[in-house]
């Protein structure tokens, strides 16, 4: 029987939808199957409390590749990105620290803590931009395989080596340091003020079960520096209508090219016959066949749950089992009846139109990690707060606000066991609100509604194994040709006609869209569909 579709995409998150867009644009018949009623996976907007639209999981956009916006015409399909103005770190004493888009204002802010740091800050930013420019080449193409003797792969390695050489010896050394050092040690190559380094170092721990002083976190720091909006590196933005706005634009683009999208159509099994994927079985028992199945859900769920470990050899199964998730973060979404008032910078103002980091010192961050190491959520966690309604009134009623808090650490493996997260959920929410209220005393009285999302919830609700927001840690041993398993970096899998197209594949997570784009491009050039 001939398959009805050229490709079935499992999961309607942004990567699945981007992948569908590219395949449909190339004339393939595509069906996207999403388990939930809303599109977007972990990039979804939901009106959990009437009038307030939460970006329930992921909440800011930066790494999303600009060429995907152009190639899929996402602006035409409603994607609008609104930049974050600045980065505000409130303190219990003194006026806090704000890093502005303006060089001079930022210098003035930092010089209150260190004159030297204030002046070297632009040099650091330049070095990071140079690195990001280098890394861009890596994230915008499929990962090369260093073990392969295929002439094309050798050429790719050579090309990368040449590109690397162009960085010059200093930058090359720096890059090596970046792969091995901790975020804090890396920052100390430039800076002396811990007050400045604290909010900068947190980019190195986002989504990992590591502390700012753990080796390897410097790379994740760069990963968050690669964001570019309108050609400028290191800029972050909101998607209008929440991160779901981005997913809806991807979905609308895919549909305009002819893709079919079904929601409330969860896939329970990927059908494999004679080592080949032939289609999927839905949760309601329906079977749909396709020439190719692409999974945008994470490698663990794809291989071990949807296909079944029995279809793979031991080595592959072992690699997938060892592939690290160990989610470490949670989310608290609040509906507020007024704008938030921070005691260190009272009143409304520009500082509320960027992100707010509760990261007063490096010790504070390390202490937060200490608790997590032993299976507790941090009682005084690192929190990254944004108020999207300050710049996008479409997400809250007039005069009211949405407050989105990304919280780390909330380890998936609490000592009571992850299945006991539901009984800890509200205590975790209280810790977050208590922490912020120390800086923002009127907060509690202004809360109209609170939604607490634990890593357990992320796994249950959107299928992120162990609640890892990147579908697998972005640590060096899980990147490029090692993601998700050696020899399988180019979206293919040991099962013929089964491909990966989600963040568990190169180059990883963070609302980049790259895994969706690159998997589609590799599949199309293989002419297998």
């Amino acid at each position: 029987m001939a398959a009805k579709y050229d490709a079935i995409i499992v999961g309607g998150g942004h990567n699945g939808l981007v992948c569908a867009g590219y395949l449909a644009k190339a004339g393939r018949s595509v069906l996207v199957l999403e388990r939930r009623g809303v599109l977007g996976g972990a990039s979804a907007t939901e009106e959990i409390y009437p009038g307030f639209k939460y970006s329930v999981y992921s909440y800011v956009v930066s790494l999303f590749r600009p060429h995907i916006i152009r190639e899929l015409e996402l602006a035409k399909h409603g994607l609008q990105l609104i930049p974050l103005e600045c980065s505000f770190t409130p303190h219990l004493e003194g006026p806090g620290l704000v890093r502005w888009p303006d060089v001079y204002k930022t210098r003035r802010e930092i010089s209150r803590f260190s004159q030297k740091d204030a002046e070297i800050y632009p040099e650091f930013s330049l070095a990071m931009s140079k690195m990001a420019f280098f890394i861009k080449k890596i994230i915008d193409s499929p990962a090369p395989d260093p073990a392969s003797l295929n002439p094309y792969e050798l050429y790719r390695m050579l090309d990368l080596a040449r590109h690397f050489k162009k960085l010059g010896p200093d930058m090359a050394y720096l890059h090596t340091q970046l792969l091995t050092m901790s975020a804090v040690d890396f920052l100390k190559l430039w800076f002396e003020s811990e007050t400045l380094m604290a909010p900068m170092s947190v980019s190195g721990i986002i989504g990992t079960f590591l502390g700012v002083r753990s080796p390897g976190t410097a790379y994740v720091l760069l990963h968050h520096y690669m964001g570019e909006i309108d050609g400028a590196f290191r800029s972050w933005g909101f998607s209008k209508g929440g991160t779901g706005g981005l997913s809806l634009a991807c979905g609308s683009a895919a549909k305009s090219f002819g893709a079919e999208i079904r929601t409330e159509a969860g896939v329970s099994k990927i059908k494999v016959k004679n080592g080949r994927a032939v289609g999927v079985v839905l949760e309601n028992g329906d079977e749909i066949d396709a020439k190719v199945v692409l999974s945008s859900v994470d490698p663990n769920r794809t291989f071990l749950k949807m296909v079944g470990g029995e279809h793979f050899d031991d080595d592959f199964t072992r690699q997938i089992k060892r592939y690290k998730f160990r989610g470490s973060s949670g989310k608290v979404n609040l509906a507020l009846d007024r704008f938030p008032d921070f005691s260190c910078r009272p009143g409304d103002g520009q500082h509320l139109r960027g992100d707010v980091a509760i990261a007063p010192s490096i010790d504070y961050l390390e202490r937060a990690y200490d608790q997590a190491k032993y299976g507790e959520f941090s009682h005084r966690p690192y929190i990254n707060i944004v108020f999207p309604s300050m710049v996008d009134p479409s997400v809250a009623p007039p005069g009211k606000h949405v407050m989105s808090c990304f919280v780390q650490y909330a380890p998936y493996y609490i000592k009571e066991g992850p299945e006991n997260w539901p009984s800890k959920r509200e205590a975790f929410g209280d810790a977050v609100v208590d922490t912020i209220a120390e800086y923002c005393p009127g907060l509690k009285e202004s809360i109209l509604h609170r939604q607490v999302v634990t890593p357990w919830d992320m796994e249950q609700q959107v299928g992120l194994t162990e609640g890892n927001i990147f579908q697998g840690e972005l640590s060096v041993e899980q990147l490029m040709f090692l993601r998700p398993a050696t020899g399988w970096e180019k979206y293919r899998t040991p099962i013929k006609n089964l491909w990966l197209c989600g963040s568990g594949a190169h180059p990883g997570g963070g609302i980049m869209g790259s895994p969706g784009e690159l998997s589609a491009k590799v599949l199309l050039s293989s002419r297998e569909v």
Partner: protein
Amino acid sequence: MFYMDWAGYYGVRSYETTHEAEYHAIRQAAGLIDVTPLYKYEVYGKDACAFLSRIMVRNIAKLKAGQVAYLCWCDEDGKMIDDGTVSRLDEDYYRVTSTDANYSWFARHTVGYDVVLEDSTARFAALAVQGPRSRDVVDDVTGGAVGKLKLFYATRTKIAGAEVIVTRTGFTGDLGYEIWVENDHAIAVYDAVIEAGRPHGAIPSGLIAMDVARIEAGFILNGIDYFNALHSMIDSRKSSPFEMSLGWAVHLKRAERKPFIGSDALKNEKQTGPPRLFVGLDIDWDEFEGLFAGHGLPPEVHSGGWRAGVPVYDLDGKFIGQATSGAWSPLLKKNFALASVKAEHGEIGNQVLFEVTVEYQRRTVKATVVEKPFFDPERKRA
């Protein structure tokens, strides 16, 4: 705050060190833009309609009381002097707004008309409230006076106790209103509007933000995209309405009975076709980014709109015209320019070469002629 000169007044370029938030307020919430330096003229009396119909390319007799028209006016050769709006505020009472000073030009044509002409530029302040939430803001501050006001209509109402006129007009191509008030009440009105705007995310926005918005909307600016014919040394600097995409505003039929200034020349040009066309250009991003990458640089776009004037060539490298302003559209993620090119190159889809300077070197990239406006949301009319 950063200031710039605007017709001899201080205009605010941006309220903060960068204009981005002010631009996004215009497109997502509402921007409050002080447009007081616009030139304003009161025209009233028995022959006001006939007088304006003689000056303007549009037939003012068709304007109902309470209606506003966007239009331009020309010299005897049919070359543009300025563009602006005419509001019919009462049966025999009109207000004209313009970019350049026009009192002298209007005054020299009043002979034989029973009409009073007053330069009210310094008497009225004007505040533009522009963006998707502008209706909520203006409705809240006026007690619901503009909910039903249609595009290009005016109404009288009160803000903070002061008499104001609100027109549904603007220079951003978005849903928007302009509030006209006597200077004495300007500050009270401004404060009231700011207060009403706060819950809707409205913030003061400067002229850089407005410029990006007006380029997205494909609107022309006197002195930048074309020049006042009365101030042009050479003929090639002058433009007709047909050359500036304003042919739709030229009402020629009425000229058979009652000629207006420039109507003979415009009739001829309509027959022969304009020698130049004002077009939108979409500058090829991949080529643009490639030029920068060749130097090891990330692509760099101008922050805000640019208005420096850039040569445009055909694909053989022959000079065919100039791009007069442009901007990177943060909303549409495209690099746009507005250009005046020889008519044979102005067809939609036609490719041209656009000059780009990268690392001090002049290069060219491909650009495609595309439809204007670049941005035209439904809410503008809804």
